[in-house]
């Protein structure tokens, strides 16, 4: 084929596509709502991005052919993200979810150019006329996990595999420590930083190093199920993170703190369909069904499970709040007086350990 012919063909094709696009515009009423999702990781990580994709699938299951979803995975934070978000907006998506902290500024920049498109950004704090945010309160689940851990440990040593010392991670370590302080002050929390969100080998090494030191319950704020497997091999307990990890350790798996993004996606899509959507800072937890503990290990004593369920019910109705005063910091100074609560804004900036955590925050 000669170049000119080729060019003709391409032009023809493009014209055809344009015509189709035009004709589809005229019947827009019957068109499905187009929803775009931008993921930072692969959907195969069985963790953060995987759970967002599960949320997308559950929205598809609810709305069927009333919506059409598109997702882009493995999007690097920064300029690349802006290009991806721009393309989604340009190709007629009515609602776009951007699911990582680093997509915040790219989302805002693109949103300015497409005022009619609704944007929602996960875990960020900046909003605009057509940009809302959403985040889930994982610390509620971690508090319950901390309670269960405090009851099932025999060695009184509980391990915590941590990723990076950012407020979200420090906050959740504190939630576990507060549960220990309340329910089993003799239990010691050992924190090991692996400096990675995802490195199965290293997470397993950390789990093993902890168990070598007598730890018999392992919690994690990293994304792979490797620690669960390591615990299963050596007869310890572990708590799953982000997704249900029970299949990796039928005996070891105490419970998983699962992020359920489905309800948020379903509600948001409905609001956009109805034309009632407004940008909000959505903070969602157990009450909204965004944080779920699907099951408890059968070997946990019945009274412990019962109390854990009471805690969950209390968190849902607001009577239980992990960060209610009095809370002291590591040095023993009273930071949150009796009768007051740390607000969500305070928790977003948390950079100090509560009383009882053994190690220091890495600098």
């Amino acid at each position, binding site marked *: 084929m000669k170049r000119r012919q080729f060019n003709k063909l391409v032009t023809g094709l493009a014209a055809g596509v344009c015509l189709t696009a035009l004709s589809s515009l005229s019947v827009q009423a019957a068109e499905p709502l187009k929803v775009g999702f931008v993921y930072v990781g692969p959907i195969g990580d069985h963790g953060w991005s*995987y759970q967002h994709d599960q949320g997308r699938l559950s929205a598809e299951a609810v709305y069927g052919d009333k919506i059409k979803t598109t997702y882009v995975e493995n999007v690097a934070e920064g300029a690349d993200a802006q290009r991806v978000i721009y393309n989604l907006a340009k190709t007629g998506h009515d609602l776009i979810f951007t699911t990582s902290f680093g997509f915040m500024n790219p989302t805002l920049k693109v949103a300015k150019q497409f005022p009619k498109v609704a944007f929602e950004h996960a875990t960020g704090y900046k909003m605009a006329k057509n940009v809302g945010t959403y985040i889930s309160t994982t610390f509620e689940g971690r508090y319950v996990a901390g309670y269960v851990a405090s009851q099932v440990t025999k060695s009184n040593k509980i391990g915590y595999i941590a990723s990076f010392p950012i407020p979200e991670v420090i906050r959740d370590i504190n939630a576990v420590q507060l549960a220990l302080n309340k329910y089993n002050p003799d239990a010691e929390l*050992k924190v*090991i930083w692996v*400096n990675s969100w995802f490195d199965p080998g*290293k997470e397993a090494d950390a789990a093993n190093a902890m168990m070598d030191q007598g730890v018999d319950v392992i919690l994690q704020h990293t994304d792979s199920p490797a620690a669960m497997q390591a615990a299963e091999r050596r007869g310890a307990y572990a708590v799953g993170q982000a997704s249900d990890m029970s299949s990796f350790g039928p005996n070891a798996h105490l419970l998983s703190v699962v992020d359920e993004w489905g309800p948020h996606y379903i509600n948001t899509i409905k609001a956009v369909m109805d034309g009632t959507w407004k940008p909000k800072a959505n903070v969602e937890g157990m009450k909204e069904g965004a944080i779920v503990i699907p099951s408890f290990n059968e070997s946990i004593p019945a009274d412990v499970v019962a109390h854990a369920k009471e805690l969950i019910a209390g968190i849902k109705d607001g009577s239980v709040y992990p960060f209610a005063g009095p809370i002291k910091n590591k040095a023993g100074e009273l930071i949150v007086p009796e009768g007051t609560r740390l607000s969500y804004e305070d928790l977003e900036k948390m950079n100090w350990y509560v009383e009882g955590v053994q*190690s*220091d925050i*890495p600098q």
Partner: protein
Amino acid sequence: MDIDLITNILYAMIRTGTPLLIVALGELICEKSGVLNLGQEGMMLMGAVIGFIVTLLSGSLLLGFMLAIIAGVLMSLIFGLITMELSANQVATGLALTIFGTGLSAFIGSDYVGKPIEGLDPIFISGLTDLPIIGRMLFGQDLVVYLSFILFAAAYWFVNYSRPGLVLKAVGENPHAANAIGLPVFKTRYLAIMFGGAMAGLAGGYLSLAYTPLWAENMTAGRGWIALALVVFASWKVGRVLLGAWLFGLASILHLVFQGLGFSVSPNLLAILPYLATVVVLVILSSNQARSRLVAPMSLGNPFYAKG
């Protein structure tokens, strides 16, 4: 620190060092022939995903490991064809191989994420494994660890004492001279590349079948790059690769153990130790022109043109 803790640290040191040792041995042999293959990470991931899928479907760990090795070899052959037949730049081709392997393994493995298998278990010899300090380290590992000991011994003998090893080194130092005296340059380089691929495949399989029996995208998490650094760290000597791999293993284990014990050593500092060590060795090596010429294969990274 009590005896149990030391026993466990030594055990974990060997275990952590094993995948690094296997990949680094493969890369060392490959580089000895004058070929620099930066595709370790891609070949490892392909080995990991193929090994995992085969074991999941067939239930056989042996079959899983065998196909992991074959996957590594096939990946290395892609590299071989491009760099040898087309004389493409080795660095660029190797990087492309890593990117290709990362993407392809994610694509193939997407349906297998979150599925557990029965991994390879460590062996236990009553009497020997119970020995304090060295018991678990030497007698409580899994079979691949023992295989890595054998591979090391074989590579050591091959490079230092065998005639084919001499041919390998001759090809890596000066392929034109080797060609002139009738040594098979292409064949030697192909075999070295394939050996590198086989070792990367085996190490990948070790990660997904024994170390953490699961498949997840990008699960090698940079171990291929550490192995490349190890070869430099070892200044292309087989014996030092073993030492280096175990030292790297020890450093990464201590970094975790110290935190658990509550020592206030910055985990970040401990985490960079392996890389710091590599940089130091590089500095020492390159501080002296003559010394740096002695250690690295002379034709490393240069394509060979038979007629040129």
